[in-house]
């Protein structure tokens, strides 16, 4: 039995690097410090759905084949295609992503990562107006106002609050945990009083509307770090906020633009914006201006609702305006553990962060034109390679239908929805458990991923599989050019 300390967790963009694993007989048996998702990955990664050998579809059925045969077939498909898509890249190491860029350039395809259905709009917003940001360490020690906009860290990034924001004990900012506990007690008392009043009046109140009465949020303001949550529904994160703004669905843009006017000491002609009374917004604007260092974290609630990248753009503009009065930063809550790495590697190698098209021989980028989702919906592709992602489970039906019309190569440790649709399937080792590598945290800090156990026999890493395919593609291409020269 051995204990491995300071392991980086390969789940979400938080990349918690304080995990302690107990390893026995090449198996992880105990996880310390991690959240529930982290524990379930480290304990449950060797499930029954693990693929054990390369597979190829013959007569409509996936049958085991040798690694060589699979590599040859995959290379043939890619080298002969006219407009292939190479999609995924977010749950693997930056080393594998680097090989991926070279492979895409070699086959003249499109390299796109999962940002396209996630924080791609954030990147577009940043490209419009720039981004004032910082590292999570800065926020942990100095931020006295935290905003979560359109995201629910309590459920999706469970240790974000505890490691980087409200509940952490920073050098200059105290933890809000104690205050939160007091608040919970006070709210429980409040709820009792409310139910007593309901019984008294004989009326049942269906849903307490937080922002229905101007200037009367059902929240308790505390000393120390302020927490503001803006969401369409009262999430777990919203329960512990100092201010909770329940915005009408798809109205975030209007709300933010109104806040921008208020932060500039302007006046509004309306009484309500996005269902929120302007009086309440004025209080929030005061809190924003009066903090010493604030930060906005935003999620899919901004990037994938009406307005998309314009929402992010206006959020950054709000931060820019606030920086005239105080200090403010903004950061997207990235999902996959290395989706930031996929953007960084792609930008470092090609100049563009996602949706890079190599079909003309040089990298081009224009989301809407060169992004894989749009290409699939316009039915332009003729082959696909999916690695470290599961579009089969979350892409629109029409996109997937078109993806499976043409040869589909899948590289994944699991038999997931995409692997089941694949024509050539490669099993790979788990990055961060069975293979080491580099991953980028949501604040663009690169962290090392550790190898804690040996992969099953014969299972290669994503990087090794890609390198083999790339070598074979190069061989096929050189043969082709030689033939042409002869002719």
């Amino acid at each position, binding site marked *: 039995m051995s204990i491995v300390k300071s392991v980086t967790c390969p789940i979400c963009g938080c990349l918690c690097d304080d995990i302690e694993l107990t390893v026995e007989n090449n198996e992880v048996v105990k996880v310390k410090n991690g959240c529930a998702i982290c524990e379930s990955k480290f304990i449950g990664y060797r499930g029954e759905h693990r693929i054990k050998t390369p597979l190829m579809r013959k007569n409509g059925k996936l049958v085991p084949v040798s690694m060589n045969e699979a590599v040859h077939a995959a290379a043939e498909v890619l080298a002969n295609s006219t*407009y292939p898509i190479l999609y995924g890249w977010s749950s693997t190491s930056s080393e594998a992503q680097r090989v991926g860029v070279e492979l895409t350039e070699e086959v003249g395809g499109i390299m796109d990562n999962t940002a396209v259905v996630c924080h791609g709009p954030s990147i577009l917003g940043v490209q419009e107006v720039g981004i004032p940001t910082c590292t999570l360490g800065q926020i942990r020690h100095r931020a006295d106002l935290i905003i979560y906009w359109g995201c629910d860290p309590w459920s999706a990034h469970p240790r974000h609050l505890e490691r980087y924001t409200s509940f952490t004990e920073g050098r200059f900012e105290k933890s809000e945990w104690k205050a939160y506990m007091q608040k919970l007690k006070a709210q429980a008392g409040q709820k009792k009083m409310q139910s007593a009043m309901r019984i008294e009046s004989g009326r049942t109140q269906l849903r307490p509307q937080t922002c229905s009465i101007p200037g009367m949020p059902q929240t308790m303001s505390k000393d120390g770090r302020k927490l503001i949550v803006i969401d369409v529904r009262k999430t777990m994160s919203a329960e512990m906020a100092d201010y909770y703004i329940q915005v009408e669905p798809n109205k975030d843009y209007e709300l933010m633009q109104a806040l921008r006017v208020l932060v500039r000491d*302007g006046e509004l002609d309306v009484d309500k914006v996005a269902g929120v009374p302007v009086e309440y917004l004025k209080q929030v604007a005061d809190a924003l201006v009066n903090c010493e260092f604030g930060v906005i974290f935003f999620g899919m609630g901004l990037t994938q609702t009406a307005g998309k990248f314009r929402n992010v753009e206006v959020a950054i503009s709000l931060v820019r305006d606030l920086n005239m009065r105080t200090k403010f930063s903004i950061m997207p809550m990235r999902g996959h553990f290395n989706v930031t790495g996929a953007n960084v590697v792609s930008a470092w190698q090609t100049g563009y962060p996602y949706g890079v098209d190599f*079909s003309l021989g040089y990298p081009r980028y224009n989301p*809407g034109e060169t992004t894989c989702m749009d290409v699939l919906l316009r039915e332009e592709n*003729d082959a696909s390679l999916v690695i470290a992602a599961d579009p089969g489970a979350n892409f629109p039906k029409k996109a997937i239908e078109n993806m499976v019309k043409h040869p589909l190569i899948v590289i994944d440790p699991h038999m997931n929805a995409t692997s089941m649709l694949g024509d050539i399937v490669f099993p790979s080792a788990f990055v961060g458990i069975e293979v080491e590598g580099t991953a980028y945290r949501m604040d663009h800090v690169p962290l090392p991923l550790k190898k804690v156990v040996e992969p099953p026999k014969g299972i290669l890493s994503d990087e090794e599989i890609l390198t083999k395919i790339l070598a074979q593609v190069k061989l096929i291409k050189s043969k082709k050019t030689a033939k042409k020269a002869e002719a």
Partner: protein
Amino acid sequence: MIVLTPLRKFTFPVNAECINPDVFQGKDTAEIANLTVFEGNKQKKLSELFKIQEDGAESPTITINGDVSEVRRIGVGMKNGEIVINGNVGMHLGEKMAGGKITVNGDACQWAGGSMKKGLIEIHGNAGDYLASPYRGSTAGMKGGKIVVDGDVGSDSGAYLHGGLIKIKGNNVGQFLGFHMSDGVIHVEKNASTRLGANMTGGKIIVSGYVEEVMPSFTIDSVKPKVKVDDTESVAGPFYVFLGDLAEKGTGKLFVSKANNPHLKTYEKFL
């Protein structure tokens, strides 16, 4: 005059920047047939994709007969001449064009007339998103010229408009029309969507039909009986005049028909 007819239906995107009167001028059909295009990642000759015919007329006009919705970058940067497309056309039609005329007897895809400087684009069907809008991250929007769309228009059209005129006659216009525009005129003859003129700092948007709501960062200025579209045309109102976008300290003007928008009456108390 050159007539191009697609030899088959294209499934892969075709990059055909060479379909441009400036490029064709002074070349015979053999030279035009040899021009390079890309279909997906395969380099091809124009004659492999199109039937190329010449008829006697001297003017550098190109006619395309058939569906070319997968053919991109037609007429990019053209300075003079005329292109007529009898069918649907692909993205980036007439991007950065500096003169001449393009007529589309069908629908156009995204970025038609993007960043154009001069000339005229007439689209008799619908136009896609980003009509007259610049490339991602760029603030160099349309500077001059005229775009007329008979049908609907997608979202983010007329973004970063610096000049020129866009006329939209269809029933549906996507959101963020005239985003961050600083000059120029957009005239919507029927209804417009939300987030009209968001972040605009100058110029004017005229909506003769219904608008669901005006951005909260706009303030009402006055009611005007009529408004001028360009030197030759004006539209009769009355119109509510909104100023904005206050979030950008803008002085852009939003003219919204009073008759078709009774729900905006609440603003009248500020007049």
